């Protein structure tokens, strides 16, 4: 095992987060921006689960595993990621509802045109 694989998951999480931020900043369409935000969210799940991983361990579920027989990965970070996946989706829905309202009120979903409209 090389040093690269020791940090690769963290670096991938950072890359995904930065890519999502870049998309958010340069987006010309609010719907696309919401999609980019969900990419940013995905980065946090990758980071959390990478922190909790343990080499040679198995899932922290003891329905078919005698307790103590094998090391298990960290269940706390999994619980954090798990709730956020679903709650994040409903927040995405709220943002999309806002986009629908913006389209109704202003007739456009381009952020640049929106700031022009405001004057």
């Amino acid at each position: 095992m090389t040093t690269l694989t020791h940090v690769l998951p963290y670096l991938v999480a950072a890359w995904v987060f930065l890519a999502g931020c870049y998309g958010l900043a340069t987006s010309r369409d609010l719907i696309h921006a919401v999609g980019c935000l969900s990419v940013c969210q995905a980065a946090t799940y990758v980071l959390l689960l990478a922190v909790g991983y343990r080499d040679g361990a198995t899932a922290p579920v003891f329905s078919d595993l005698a307790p103590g027989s094998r090391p298990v990965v960290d269940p706390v970070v999994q619980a954090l990621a798990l709730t956020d996946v679903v709650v994040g989706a409903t927040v995405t829905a709220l943002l999309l509802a806002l986009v629908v309202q913006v389209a109704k009120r202003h007739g456009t979903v381009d952020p640049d045109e929106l700031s022009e409209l405001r004057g």
Partner: protein
Amino acid sequence: MSPRMRLWLVAAGGAGLAALLVAACLDLPRFGGDRHPCGDRAVEASLSRHTANTVASVTFDQRAFDTLGEMSILFAAVLGSVVLLRQTRDEHRARPEPAAVSRPVRRYALLVLPVALLTGLYVVAHGQVSPGGGFQGGVVAATALHLLYLGADYRALERVRPLAPYEAGDALAASAYLVTGLAALLAGSAFLANTLLPYGTFNTLASAGTVPLLNAAIGMEVACAVVVLLAGFLDQAVEIVDEGESGERHDDPGRPGKRERP
């Protein structure tokens, strides 16, 4: 601010953030390391309360208060979406015509629907013993219901999905979670503490004390929330039209009621 200037600002900020993130990554405990003091204690606590799925134990027992917060965010987000997506005065509903669905699609969608629905309910019910739980199962069950839209049409979906009970169910589930927490308080321990019910036999459905109750409440909450959300968006995309676009149902009868690119 000009787009060019903004791009420079993003580049500068992004480069700074990237440098800090990389520096932080190199300093983190190595990936796959063996030191997880927090996780080890959570597993111990979970086993002492006869919960086979330690993730469910963390979500609905050790960090149940945190889940209450998450649930409130979910509830607030759904409430906000419903308010934002309601029909306004200058809009009206155009009844979508039933659109033709090819036979294989109809057959497979209607075949898969009960299986998917049952899978969702199974995942909710077995949250404390196997991977799964209210959050996942709720989403599966609610999206399964929408196979009816693929297999039949929008009107059929509306018939099996009167919205009012789902909205009520959402609120009911949220209060069920709170009531379970308060019951522990009344019984003489802390809010949401898992002391109300016996822990039961390890690795059976009736184990883990109040975990199955909270799990079921969350499952109902998430399922109702997803149904209500999708209904709001489907209404907007399929049914609700502006005053100016009322000619739609006469213009192109082939299109309404089905999701496809305009």
